[in-house]
């Protein structure tokens, strides 16, 4: 089977487009989160997504709209992590741990109430970008447009807040509003990323492209563009290899993200050694 044949399938086209958009969104937001030491928020929100999906499945929402229906609960959880951290008495990792464990506990309890784990819930645990539906594709496009617009419009403010929150505040940046926007968008991104990589691997989409781009030691804007490029590249390579080798697409996307990181890290070490 050649590349032309693979790309001729409508579901592959949908998967590539949705995957690329979601990966780009995750990478853009991931850079800010990693630098602010919120790397594991993806894990926390993914676990909450598990609980939220269990809620939506329990109340009998059509599988077609599960992603959409799970959003509000995950957004509330994201804000809860932010608020817990803002109190200054709870560190980011602990706040994520609290929300994460509650999400898992809710998921398990509700699954039990609905007669045990079912196939639908398991499909969200491991994700499958190849089954992305039209609603999710449209949602990905909307979210990408919103995130790109927010990053473009608030670039200077996001830069300042990521560099140093107190300094940003002294420059008149509305840090509270910006943080709420960032955490809400992260929630949306985590729910969408669940479709690409599954709940188990959501944080990889947020963390790995950012870490890979950071290895380049270039300026902030270039790092952001590079992270997006690595993320989209990993989606294309991952889906392609998954299709050809009949392997899970989500896992392959994450594997390619990790390969890019190792490659860039290795090349950088090589050049540093010769410097």
């Amino acid at each position: 089977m050649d590349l032309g044949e693979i790309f001729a399938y409508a579901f592959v086209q949908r998967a590539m487009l949705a995957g690329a958009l979601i990966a780009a969104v995750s990478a853009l937001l991931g850079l800010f989160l990693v630098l602010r030491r919120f790397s594991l928020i993806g894990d926390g929100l993914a676990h909450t997504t598990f609980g939220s999906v269990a809620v939506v499945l329990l109340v009998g929402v059509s599988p077609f709209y599960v992603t959409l229906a799970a959003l509000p609960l995950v957004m509330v959880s994201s804000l809860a992590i932010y608020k817990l951290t803002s109190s200054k008495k709870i560190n980011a990792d602990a706040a994520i741990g609290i929300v994460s464990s509650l999400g898992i506990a809710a998921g398990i309890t509700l699954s039990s109430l609905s007669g045990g784990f079912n196939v639908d819930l398991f499909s969200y645990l491991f994700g499958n970008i190849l089954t992305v539906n039209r609603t999710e594709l449209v949602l990905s496009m909307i979210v990408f447009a919103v995130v790109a617009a927010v990053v473009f419009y608030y670039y200077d403010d996001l830069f300042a807040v990521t560099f140093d929150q107190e300094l940003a505040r002294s420059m008149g940046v509305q840090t509270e509003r910006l943080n709420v926007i960032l955490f809400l968008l992260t929630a949306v991104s985590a729910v969408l990323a669940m479709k690409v990589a599954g709940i188990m691997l959501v944080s990889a989409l947020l963390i790995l492209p950012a870490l890979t781009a950071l290895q380049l030691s270039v300026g902030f804007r270039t790092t952001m563009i590079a992270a997006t490029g690595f993320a989209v590249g990993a989606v294309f390579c991952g889906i392609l290899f998954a299709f050809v080798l009949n392997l899970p697409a989500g896992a392959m996307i994450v594997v390619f993200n990790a390969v890019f990181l190792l490659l860039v890290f290795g090349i950088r070490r090589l050049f540093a050694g010769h410097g």
Partner: protein
Amino acid sequence: MPVIRVENLTFRYNGTEVINEIGFTVERGVYLAVVGPNGSGKSTLVKNILGILKPEKGRVELFGRRLEDFSSWEKIGYLPQRLSGLNIHFPGTVAEIVQMGLPKKDPALLSDTLDMMAIGHLGRRLIGDLSYGEQQRVMLARALIRRPELLIFDEPTTALDPETRDVFYALTQKLNRQEGTTVALVTHDSGVVGQYAQHLLYLDKKVIFSGTFRDFCASADMTGFFGATSQHIICHQHDSTGSGR
């Protein structure tokens, strides 16, 4: 119209009083030194003035406007004691950081400002790759690039070598005297107080002294508070510079 007006400012942290009913004003063109022992609330005061912390009660005005309504932040250049959350992996170049918040990037202005702090050669380096002293110079350049009307420095020279420190203070003095820039400087360095600042605010959770340096040196109350020797040391340094304020 004062550049800074503080009225009855009180701030508590976890129930512990850090500053209590502080009030003072800073007029335009003044070079003010804010001094006091460790834990006296100097940095907390600065953070309350800049809206970084929210006071329990009291009022702050900047350039005649209540802090809540103030929006001309380009008039203020601030250098914190240390960056609260600098991630050494932050991929910002020196040029990006110095120009942070500038509405329009200006290469000539950037170049002048970097040269002023003797870091013109570091423009493309990442902030995390620099020494602490170099980072401090970058942050000074950032505070100065907008040519602000009010400069607020919180222990600005702790990481600087003596030579750069002298350059820094000479620069602040020049900005203050020639361009009328108001300077509020939190410092432990009594020599600096005597040499550069015309006004002194002595804090120890509340205002112990607020006034001109001359008044401080002549004050019998302050002699009683500090002891004659300490007061004499500070005021003698002032005299020895011959700045005669």
